[in-house]
C-alpha cells in the first residue's frame, strides 16, 4: 500500500493532458524522464504573458516592457532562491541543459592546453559527452572516463585514482537519465576541488526530484532544463559561480550582452547579460518560475517520498514478470526503471504498450556507452512522476505482460 500525504487525484486534475485518451485507452504517461507534463498553473502563466504583457525586456520605457522585465527577473529570483544561489546574476537563462553545457565547454577553450584532462562519468547522456570531445579536439586535452559497475554506480575508488594535477574539469550528471542512479556528487565535487579541478554537474534528471543546494554542494556549474520539471521546453538555466562566470568569455555575440559597441571595440555587459545575447525566451523564463512555484507548493520532500514508494512498488511488480531484467539497481536512484525481457527487443514492447495507451521510452536513451557496457541494443524505460499512480503501475505491468505473451 502506498502511503502519501499528497492528494494525487487532486494533483492529477492540475494536468489537462492526463485526462486524454490514447488509442482508445486513458493515457498512462510514464516518459517523465524525457519530458514532464505541464500543469494548468504553468499553462496559465504562458497564456497570461501573451494576453497581457508580451513585450521585449530590459530596455523599453513603456509599461508593458517594464512588466515583462519585472516578471522575467522575478523568475530569475525564484530560481536563485530554489537552488539556494548567492547572487541572482549567477543564474544564466539558457535554452536548456544542452546549451548550458556547450556554453561552459566553449568557454573552457582558453583555459585548457595539451595534456590537460577532463573526467566524465561512464553514464553520461550524449549531450554530456560530445561537447567535451569537441573541447578536447580544439585544445588537445584528454577525455577520461570514470567507470561504473554492473549496478550502475560509479566506481569511486577509480574516480579518486583518476584525479591528478592534470585534471582541469570534472563532469558528471546528478542523476543518470538511462538508469536513474543518483550519483554521489558531494564527494565528487569535494575531491575534484582538492585536486584543483572545476566541476560541472548536469542536474537535468535530478531537478524534478531533488532540490539541489548550490551553496551546500559548492559546485562550480550546475545545469537544469525547465521541461523536465513541469515547465515549458526551450528554457533552462546554467548556474555558475561568480568567479567562473566572470572569467568565461561570452558564448554568443548579439544584443543584450553588450555595454558599448563601436566598430573598433565592444565591451561586454555585466553578468548575467554577458551570456544572454539577443531577445531571450521571456515567456519560457516566466513559466519556468511558475513551474518552480507549482512544484514547491506540493513540496519536494513529499514528492521524493511518494516517487520512491512508486519506484519500489513498480520494481517489485515488474520483477514478478518472468524473464524481466532491470538495468540500474543502484542503492540510490530516482523513479526510473530501465528493463528488458529476455528474448524480446525493447522496441517491440514499446510498440505494443503504446497501443494500450502507455507511453514509455525505448532505445538507447541517448546513452549508447551505457548500452554497450551492458551489451544490449537498448531498454524499455518507465519513469514515474508525482502525478502517476499505483493503478498506472499495474497497467504498465499488465501491458508488458500482454506484450510478452504476444511476442514470445
Amino acid at each position, binding site marked *: 500500500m502506498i502511503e502519501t500525504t499528497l492528494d494525487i487525484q487532486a494533483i492529477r486534475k492540475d494536468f489537462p493532458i492526463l485526462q486524454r485518451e490514447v488509442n482508445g485507452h486513458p493515457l498512462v504517461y510514464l516518459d517523465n524522464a524525457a519530458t514532464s507534463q505541464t500543469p494548468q498553473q504553468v499553462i496559465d502563466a504562458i497564456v497570461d504573458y501573451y494576453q497581457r504583457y508580451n513585450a521585449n525586456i530590459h530596455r523599453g520605457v513603456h509599461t508593458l516592457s517594464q512588466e515583462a522585465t519585472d516578471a522575467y527577473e522575478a523568475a530569475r529570483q525564484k530560481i536563485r532562491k530554489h537552488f539556494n544561489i548567492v547572487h541572482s546574476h549567477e543564474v544564466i537563462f539558457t535554452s536548456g541543459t544542452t546549451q548550458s553545457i556547450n556554453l561552459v565547454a566553449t568557454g573552457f577553450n582558453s583555459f585548457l592546453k595539451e595534456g590537460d584532462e577532463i573526467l566524465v562519468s561512464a553514464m553520461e547522456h550524449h549531450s554530456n559527452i560530445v561537447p567535451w570531445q569537441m573541447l578536447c579536439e580544439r585544445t588537445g586535452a584528454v577525455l577520461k572516463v570514470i567507470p561504473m559497475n554492473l549496478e550502475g554506480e560509479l566506481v569511486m575508488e577509480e574516480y579518486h585514482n583518476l584525479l591528478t594535477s592534470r585534471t582541469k574539469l570534472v563532469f558528471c550528471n546528478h542523476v543518470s537519465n538511462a538508469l536513474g542512479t543518483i550519483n554521489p556528487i558531494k564527494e565528487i565535487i569535494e575531491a575534484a576541488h582538492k585536486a584543483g579541478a572545476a566541476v560541472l554537474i548536469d542536474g537535468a534528471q535530478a531537478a524534478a526530484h531533488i532540490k539541489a543546494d548550490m551553496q551546500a554542494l559548492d559546485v562550480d556549474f550546475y545545469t537544469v532544463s525547465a521541461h523536465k520539471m513541469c515547465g515549458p521546453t526551450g528554457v533552462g538555466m546554467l548556474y555558475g559561480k561568480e568567479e567562473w562566470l566572470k572569467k568565461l568569455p561570452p558564448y554568443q555575440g548579439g544584443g543584450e550582452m553588450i555595454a558599448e559597441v563601436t566598430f573598433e571595440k565592444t565591451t561586454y555587459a555585466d553578468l548575467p547579460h554577458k551570456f544572454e545575447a539577443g531577445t531571450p525566451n521571456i515567456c519560457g523564463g516566466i513559466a519556468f518560475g511558475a513551474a518552480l512555484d507549482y512544484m514547491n507548493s506540493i513540496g519536494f520532500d513529499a514528492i521524493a517520498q511518494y516517487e520512491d514508494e512508486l519506484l519500489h512498488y513498480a520494481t517489485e511488480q515488474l520483477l514478478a514478470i518472468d524473464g524481466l531484467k532491470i538495468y540500474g539497481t543502484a542503492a540510490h536512484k530516482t523513479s526510473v526503471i530501465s528493463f528488458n525481457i529476455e528474448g*524480446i527487443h*525493447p*522496441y*517491440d514492447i514499446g510498440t505494443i504498450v503504446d*497501443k494500450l495507451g502507455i507511453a514509455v521510452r525505448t532505445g538507447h536513451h541517448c546513452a549508447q556507452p551505457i548500452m554497450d557496457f551492458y551489451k544490449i*541494443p537498448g531498454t524499455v524505460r518507465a519513469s514515474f512522476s508525482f502525478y502517476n499512480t499505483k493503478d498506472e503501475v499495474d497497467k504498465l505491468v499488465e501491458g508488458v505482460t500482454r506484450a510478452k505473451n*504476444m511476442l514470445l
Partner: protein
Amino acid sequence: MTIKEIQEEIIDEFSMFDDWMQRYEYMIELGKSLPLIEEQYKTDDNLIKGCQSKVWVHAELDGDKLVFTADSDAIITKGIIAILIRAFSNQKPQDIIDADVDFIDEIGLKEHLSPTRANGLVSMIKQLKLYAVAYQTQLK
C-alpha cells in the same frame, strides 16, 4: 503476380482482422516467414540507418528480377520488412521503382509511416527502391 496484385492480396488478408492486436499478431507471424538474409550479408553496409531496431536487407538479381532477403532483431520490424519484401521481391527493378506504397495505409500501419516513428519504415522503403535503382542501371 504484379506488385499491385500482391499488395491487394495483403490488404485482403489484413481486412479480416477487426482490432490492432490481431493485426500485430498476424504481422509477427509474417515476420517468421521472412526470407532470411545470409549471415555473410549482415554487414554494416546492408544495415538500414534510422531504425531503433537493426534491419539488414540484401538484394541480388535472379535473371531480370530482384530478390530481397532481410532480417531484424525486433519481431514487429521483422513483420514490417516481411510485408514489404513480399510485395517487392521477385519483381523487375523498374516495377519496384514505379510501385506506390499506399497499401501500408490500408492495412492499418499508417502510423509507422510517420517520420517520428523510429522503426524506419520510410527508410526501409527507400532502401528497397535504392537497390532497384542501382540494379536497373546495371541491367541497362
